[in-house]
Structure formats: C-alpha cells, structure tokens
C-alpha cells in the first residue's frame, strides 16, 4: 500500500513538474508560430462578388506556396489567415479585428469590396497594421480617405476607366451611357468616366445604377436602348456582370451599341461564353500580357491548376504579394513603422511590368491595359486579347486625386 502511495505521489509530482514545464513549451510553440509572417485576408468568398474573393484567395495561396518553397521572406514562412465576409463591411471589420486581437495579424490584403476597405482603413492606425490593397477600386482610398498605413498595389477604378477613355479617344463613338453597381466602386468609376467623356468633348447622355445582386437587367437594357447612346460603359462585377452580359446578348444589345466595361474576368467569360465576344474592357491584369515574367507566371500557374490560366484578380493578387515580399525584405521587419517607409517609393518589376509605390498617395503607378474579348485557339470560351497598353504616367492620376487634368 505504502509503495503504491509513494508511486502515486511520485507520479503526481511528475505531473506537477510537467505542468510547471508546460508554459515554457507553450511559449516556445508560440514563438515558433510567431515566427511566421501572418497575412490576414478577410475576403468576400461568397455573395455576389464571391468569384472575385475566390480569385484573390487562389492568387494569394499560389504565391504563398511559391515563396515558402523558396524559404519564405526573411527566412520566415508566410501564413495566410482567410475568413469569409460575404462582402459585408461590418462583418469585414469584425473579422479583421479578430485577426488582430487573437492572431496578432499586422498585415492585411485581399479585402474584396471597396466599401469594406473604406470601413477598414480608419482602424489601421489603432491596429498598427499595414493593408496593401490587391483589388479595391474606389479612388478615394488613395485620395480623400488615404491613411498612412494603406497602400494600393492594384490598378484602381479611376485608372481602369482612364485606360478605356484614352483608348476611346482613338475611336468614333459619340454618345455614351454608363451603368454601374450601386455602391462605392460603381459610383466612383462612373463619375470618372463621365468627366473623361466630357473632357473629350463627346456627349454623355446618362447613367443608372443597379443594386449588387440584381437578377433581371431588362429594365436597364431598355433604358440603354432608349438613351440613343452608341456605346455603354459598364462598371459591373461578379454575378451582376454575368447576368447583364447574358441578358444583353439575348436582347442583341451589341447590334445597337458598343459594350465597353471596366471589368470582365475570365470567370465571367467562361460563364457567359460567346455573349461577351467583342467587348472592349480595361484589364487590370490579363494572362495574355506580353512580357517574360508574365509568361513564366502563367506557365507556373498552369502547372499548378491543371492547365487553367490565371484570371484578373489572381494576377493582381500575385503582384500585391510581390510588393509585400519586396517591402518586407527591404524593411527587414513587418512592423508598420519600418514597413511603411520601405514601401514608399518601392519599385518592383513583375508580371504587369514596373510598379512604383509612390510616396505621395501610396498608389502603385503602373501601366494600363485595354483588352478585347476574342476567340483564341485552345480555349472553348472567349479570352482577353490585349489591344492597347497605356503608359503608367498617363493612366495614374495626379497625387491624391482621382480625376485627370488632360
């Protein structure tokens, strides 16, 4: 009895010892986890813009795997924290806050909607976090709403609109109408387009906005037909883009007017098929962009994803991750106070050519591309063919502005 008791006492002691030792094990595990570079991505993975969020996710995951295979950044592995926001700004803020408080996230990217991004940026200072946008279009983010910890690596809405407008100067369309999604990005881009058209001395005959998730676009199509315009500029994305283009083709709208758009992803081209043929679109990224880095990227992507080619926001997300890599490497840290100056005036040369993160408003100065939805051998659906490449200094607006002077 006695020996058993002493044994049990010994095991109790051992247990106590383990319990005392445990915190130190826990700390080292923490330190190990803390050694990864965590990037928070509160994405709209579902909802009307779910297809955009899914692309951002794939783009970031592909890049993370690639960089981790090369030893990570500063010898630290990259770890993505991904949550679904359904595209709701309030949910986005809550999920981002959780990432900061529970997982000590100091880097953000991939926030899908501009309305979500506009809700996040006022918090960045309090969170001591850097947010590099990979797709947010709203011009205000680098103008009136600019905060020190926000950077935009992607082509903004005004820049996309500007690229198409510069292209339009070479065409003969006279009267323009605009249809946009009824939220921050749609309004912003339509406004920029209207100003561009007026400055060109051509006629802007009207605009209308549709709520995200609109199923029946027939009344909008009727409005377009009645406007007498010979070209319409569309600022739609995701499900709305699919629905509009499919229905416009059924109404044979393209026989009446040219369809121009700020956005036409490959996923939409696949979903609507030949209905989008001939559309002229500003592309933030296209797999057909002709430069060696892009060719290499497309081949890597095809290998990973069974021969599929990268879509617009997959390419944009890759470029954004490359900005992270260059910035963190230069700063030697992910601390906002060190990373911010490192990102300012940083230049990378990647899949879209040179991107210069200018200091004045944190916008990535980069080339603009105009593409046409065309048939191409080896593809069962239309693909974007680059028809114009526009110089970075013509496409990027003056500092802290979202409109252009010329």
């Amino acid at each position, binding site marked *: 009895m006695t020996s058993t008791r002493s044994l049990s006492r010994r095991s109790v002691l051992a247990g106590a010892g383990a319990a005392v030792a445990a915190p130190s094990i826990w700390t080292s595990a923490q330190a190990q986890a803390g050694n990864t570079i965590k990037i928070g991505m509160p994405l709209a993975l579902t909802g009307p813009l779910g297809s955009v969020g899914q692309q951002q996710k794939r783009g970031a995951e592909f890049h993370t795997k690639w960089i981790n295979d090369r030893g990570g950044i500063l010898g630290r592995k990259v770890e993505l924290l991904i949550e679904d926001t359904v595209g709701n700004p309030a949910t986005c803020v809550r999920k981002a806050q959780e990432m900061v408080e529970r997982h000590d996230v100091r880097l953000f990217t991939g926030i899908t909607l501009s309305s979500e991004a506009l809700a996040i940026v006022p918090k960045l200072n309090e969170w001591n976090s850097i947010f590099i946008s990979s797709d947010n279009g709203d011009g205000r983010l680098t103008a009136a709403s600019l905060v020190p910890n926000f950077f935009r690596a992607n082509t903004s809405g005004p820049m996309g609109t500007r690229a198409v407008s510069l292209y339009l100067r070479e065409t003969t369309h006279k009267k323009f109408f605009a249809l946009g999604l009824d939220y921050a990005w749609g309004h912003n881009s339509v406004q920029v387009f209207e100003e561009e058209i007026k400055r060109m001395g051509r006629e802007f005959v009207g605009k209308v906005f549709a709520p995200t998730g609109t199923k*029946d676009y027939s009344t909008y199509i009727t*409005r377009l037909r009645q406007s007498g315009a010979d070209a319409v500029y569309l600022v739609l994305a995701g499900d709305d883009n699919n629905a509009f283009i499919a229905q416009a083709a059924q109404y044979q709208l393209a026989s009446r007017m040219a369809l121009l758009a700020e956005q036409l992803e490959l996923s939409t081209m696949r979903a609507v098929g030949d209905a989008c043929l001939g559309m002229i679109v500003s592309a933030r990224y296209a797999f057909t962009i002709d430069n060696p880095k892009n060719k290499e990227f497309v081949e890597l992507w095809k290998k990973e994803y069974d021969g599929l080619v990268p879509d617009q926001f997959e390419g944009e997300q890759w470029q954004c991750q490359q900005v992270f890599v260059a910035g963190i490497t230069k700063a030697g840290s992910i601390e906002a106070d060190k990373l911010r100056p490192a990102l300012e005036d940083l230049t990378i040369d990647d899949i879209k050519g040179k991107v210069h993160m200018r200091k004045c408003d944190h916008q990535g100065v980069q080339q603009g591309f105009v593409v046409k939805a065309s048939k191409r051998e080896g593809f069962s659906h239309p693909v974007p063919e680059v028809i114009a490449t526009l110089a970075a200094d013509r496409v990027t607006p003056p500092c802290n502005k979202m409109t252009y002077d010329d």
Partner: protein
Amino acid sequence: MSTLAFLLNQSVNALSQAALLFFLGVGLTLIFGIMRIVNFAHGTLYMLGAFVGYSAVRITGSYWGALVAAPLVVGLLGTAFEFGILRRLYRRDAHAFLMVTFGLALVTGEAVRLIWGSEALQVPAPALLSGVVFLLDEPFPVYRLFLAAAGAVMAFAIWQLLERTRLGLLIRATSQNAEMVHALGTDVNMIRSAVFGIGCGLAALGGVLAAPLVTASHGMAASAVIDAFVIVIIGGMGSFLGSLIGALLVAFVQVFGNYYYPDFALAFMYLLMLLVLVVRPGGLLGKEA
C-alpha cells in the same frame, strides 16, 4: 421607342419574371399549406436546380433534357429528405423545422460548391429559343416569351392537379384537416412526402429556367429565398392562387418600379409587402391573420 411598345415589352417581360417567381412561391406555399412548415432551404434548392440543369445539359446535350432532369432529381432529393428527416419531427414545434431546413440549406449550398466549384457556370438557352421577336418593332428575347408561356402552362397544370385529381383533393383535404384525412384511412405521411417533393421540384424548375438569364451561380440562393417568402406573405400562406397573384404583383412592381425609380430598386418589393400586411395581415388570400 413608342410608349405602347415600351409598355408591351415591359409587361411581357414582367410576365416572364412572374413565371420564375411563381415557381419559387408556389412550391413554398404548397409545402406550408400541407405541413405548416417554412422551408428555409427553398432558395438553395432553386440554385441546385440550376446546377443540376447544367450537368444535365452536359450529359444529354439538350436543354430540354435539363428541364426534365433538374425538377426530377431535386424533387426526389426533397422527398428523401422529408422521408428521412422531416418525418421524425412532426410532433415537435416549428423551431425544429426551422433549424433542420436551415441546416439543409447550408449542407446543400456547400455540397454544390464541392461538386460544381464556386464559379458561375454557363447554361445557354437552346438554339430554338435564343433569337428575338419584334413586339411593335422592338426586339424581345424569345426565351423570355418562353418563360412567360411556361409559367402560364405550369400554373394551369398545378391548378388542374389541385382541383381535378384525387391527389389534389387529398392535398386540399390534408391542408384543411390532416387528422381527419388520416382517420378516413389515407396515409397522410405519403401526401406530405409527395408535396414536399413537388414543392422542391418546382423550385428546381424555376432555377433551371432562370439559369440562361443569370447563369448557374451560388448567388441565386440568397435572393431567391427572400423573393419566395415575400410572394407567399403577400399572397397568403398556403394559398395557391395567392402565390400566383403575389408573383405577378411583385414582378410588375419590380419591373416598372426599377424602370421609373432605379434608386429604389430594392425597396419596391418590401413596400408592396408592407402595404399588403397593413391592409390584410394574413396576406391577400390568407386565412390566418
């Protein structure tokens, strides 16, 4: 475009939208009438219909094949769900159904994502229906005419089923007094299974019919379930005719409201519902206040 041409075009268009809404609403209302349960999975089954339709087009090579396959597959799934799960819950209160149909919506939504991926998929209208006709010199898609016709035919068929057939008689009787029907020697559970299956099948038919307009996408589910509820609330819970009137009202108000006041596009349906609820709290043709 003349005013007359405009009105004609938009009215026919509203009829085509009403047809889609009717397929959603009538299934929900039939299920409620018989089982006194609100099927939260209705929008998801509508979406499932579109995706099953996509696969059916791929397999059979024909849109017509999809029109048959989608309601059939989803209807059978609905029947199996009633048979396997819902049936065990009839003695419980309404919360149990709420939870379990909501669960069905979540599981089905994720299953669709796993099977078909998360991108929208193309379901083209058949060549026969992909042209335009000219209504007073204005082009109008043949496919939308087809939708309006399909809605009218199905409304008539369901009405005949309910009024003229023995199954219809039993459905109406069960909705009035299930215990009495049971006491008279009819297997009420069989009727419930059948009605749940028919309701789900009708939602799927709506989904596969909507697919050429909006592509088969995950976004279909969320708005569809809200539309279906609004129609049923406007028409009156459990009323067949109510769901038809509700669908027509919502479609016309949305189409014309969207055109004249695009800034309030989202509000019209709810304003209509509010108005109906103020005037008739039980819905236009509903019995329960």
